[in-house]
């Protein structure tokens, strides 16, 4: 538990299972993160409550419920509203979010396809301090 407690929890919500898996593998390989993936947006809130992530990587375009709605629900929950959310999405281009990541409104965006280094830099920047 002591080791796990040192690792930051990252929740990835993305309907692309392959992407979710690849990103999870990459993040976990760093040894710094405990990563959990969720492909269904409708279960996202439940997963957040149970997993208590330090940071959420959230896709925007998903079936049933979009990333924007998920984010709204999280922000509406007093217990969950402080969890930083990074949108990792194909709906924006690298040009629009350069230099990455940028805040669009109250959220942070990363453009797919993002290099691992970009993702890590973004996570490090937005993880809440210890």
């Amino acid at each position: 538990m002591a080791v796990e407690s040192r690792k930051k929890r990252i929740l990835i919500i993305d309907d692309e299972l392959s992407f979710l898996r690849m990103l999870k593998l990459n993040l976990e390989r760093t040894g710094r993160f405990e990563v959990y993936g969720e492909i269904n947006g409708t279960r996202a809130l439940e997963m957040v409550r149970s997993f208590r992530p330090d940071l959420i990587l959230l896709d925007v375009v998903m079936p049933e419920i979009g990333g924007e709605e998920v984010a709204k629900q999280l922000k509406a929950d007093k217990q969950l509203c402080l969890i930083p959310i990074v949108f990792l999405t194909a709906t924006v281009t690298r040009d629009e979010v350069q230099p990455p990541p940028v805040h669009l409104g109250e959220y942070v965006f990363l453009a797919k396809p993002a290099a691992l280094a970009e993702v890590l830099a973004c996570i490090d920047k937005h993880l809440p301090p210890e």
Partner: protein
Amino acid sequence: MKSGKSAWIVAALCLIALGWIWSVSRAHAQYNARISFQQQADSVAAKLRERLLVYEGILHGARGLYAASKSVERSEWRAYIDSLSIQERYPGVRAFSFIAAVPRSELDVFLEKTRADGAFDFQIRSSGNLPDLMVVKYDEVFVDVLPPLGYDIASEPVRRSAAERARDTAEMTAMDKLALVTDRTEAPGFLLLYPVYKNDHAVVTLEQRRQAIQGWVMAVFRMEDFVRGVLADSAEQVDMDIFDGQSSECDRLLYGGWSCARNAAGGRLGTGMTSSISMEAGGRTWTLVFRPRQTFYAQVQDRSSVLVLIIGGVISLLLVGIVWSLGTTQIRATTLAEAMTHELRQAHLQLTQAAKLESTGRLAAGVAHEVKNPLAIMLMGLEYLAGQLEAHPDAEIGSVLKEMKQAVMRADSIVRGLLNFASQRELELQAEELNPVVENSLILVKHELDRAHVQVVKNLDPSLPKLLIDRLKLEQVFVNVFTNAAHAMPNGGLLTVTTARQIAQVTAQGSAKSARVVVVVDDTGSGIPKKLLAKIYDPFFTTKPTGQGTGLGLTVTQKIIELHSGTIEIQNRPEGGVRVILSFTENISDSKETEYGS
């Protein structure tokens, strides 16, 4: 040119018509002048006849005197002459005589009676030995002329012949041309004889007339004086020559002399209008020859032909002007119509292009999203594999993974270009100077230009007005254009950037001029094949090697320029290379913010 040709044709036709009308008018005027001149000549001839009749009346009167008396005494003759007031009423009469027909056998009796009548020194002046004498018995001489009192005119064949002709015909008879020798000027004159027969003698036959002849009344006229009165009003209008006889031989000239002077000068005095009229004068024929004087020409000068020339000229000029104006108006209208047609065609092409771009944009947005997710998967997978390889290094696998990652990034670049094209943003228009935008764009592509060893020449007009533009979007445009130029000159070349202000001379609206700011970018590359020129704006069309271009640069560029209400024109330069002309409307107030993208 067409209008000019028509105007020349009309001008030529007008000249021909004008020439014809003028010649007809002139001929008409000449005809009228000739008629007027002939009327003048006829009038003078008629007056001359009248005067001759009046003068003949004197002779008739004298004959009546003899008819009324058994004998006419010298005093009666003088009283009759005095009563005529000849010098006042009959100018030109130089002498008035009664010539007595005297048979030689009765000569002595005649002399005795005449001397008894008061002519005490009366002498017969005769030569020859003819049986009959024709002696001047009474003689009232107003000017010193022949024949004198007592002169036997039968001594002269000419006068005798005239007297005999008068006797035989019982008619007024004129004598042949007579030189009034006692007149210092030797002016020509003529002589009229009228026979006087004895009372109570029949004069029906020739023989009876010869038997009954008592004598002749005779008047001597100086021609110039005789005519002067006749010509009085017409002297300013016409010159008149009078010839004794039916021809105009100068030795038969009675009056005038202009025609003789002309003949002597070989016709050099003019060969204008003349009129010849014959008239009978005491059994002889006089030929009157007339010519108009300058005053006549001045009076009858018909200004209508000149008027026709002036009015016709003015009308011709108007006609030519109208035709020219119509022609040029037609040309202007045609030019305008062509310009409008061109603009319409351009607008249609732009609409078509816009529609194509809109659909392409929507497609691109959808495709981009769906492509980016697999790319993201691939990239993450490649990153994972690369991480795994760190534990078991393999240079070849590492190289493969690197190339795959580059391919993913290239695909992402294309997708980003598509999304850039399809993204919805508003232009942020502000009044900006164009030259700094150009300068900044050149800085952004400096690395590309330097790498290709391209030299840059800038001809930037410092007096350009500000334009309403989206600075960043136009930078994107210029970067695209300059990058294309750099790619077209991989082995070096010259990039010339020119900005200028242009005044458009003809607009589709007809008359208003409009000012535009143009940016001309010339490169010295290989140019674009002609058959590909029409496709350069098509999305994904590129002539660049794979990996160097997405084929979206010019598509995006064209769209941005259109949103600025500008135009882009790309053409091959005759000297080689490509010329890109970007043109912007100068009028800031006309510019509007425009939705960018679909």
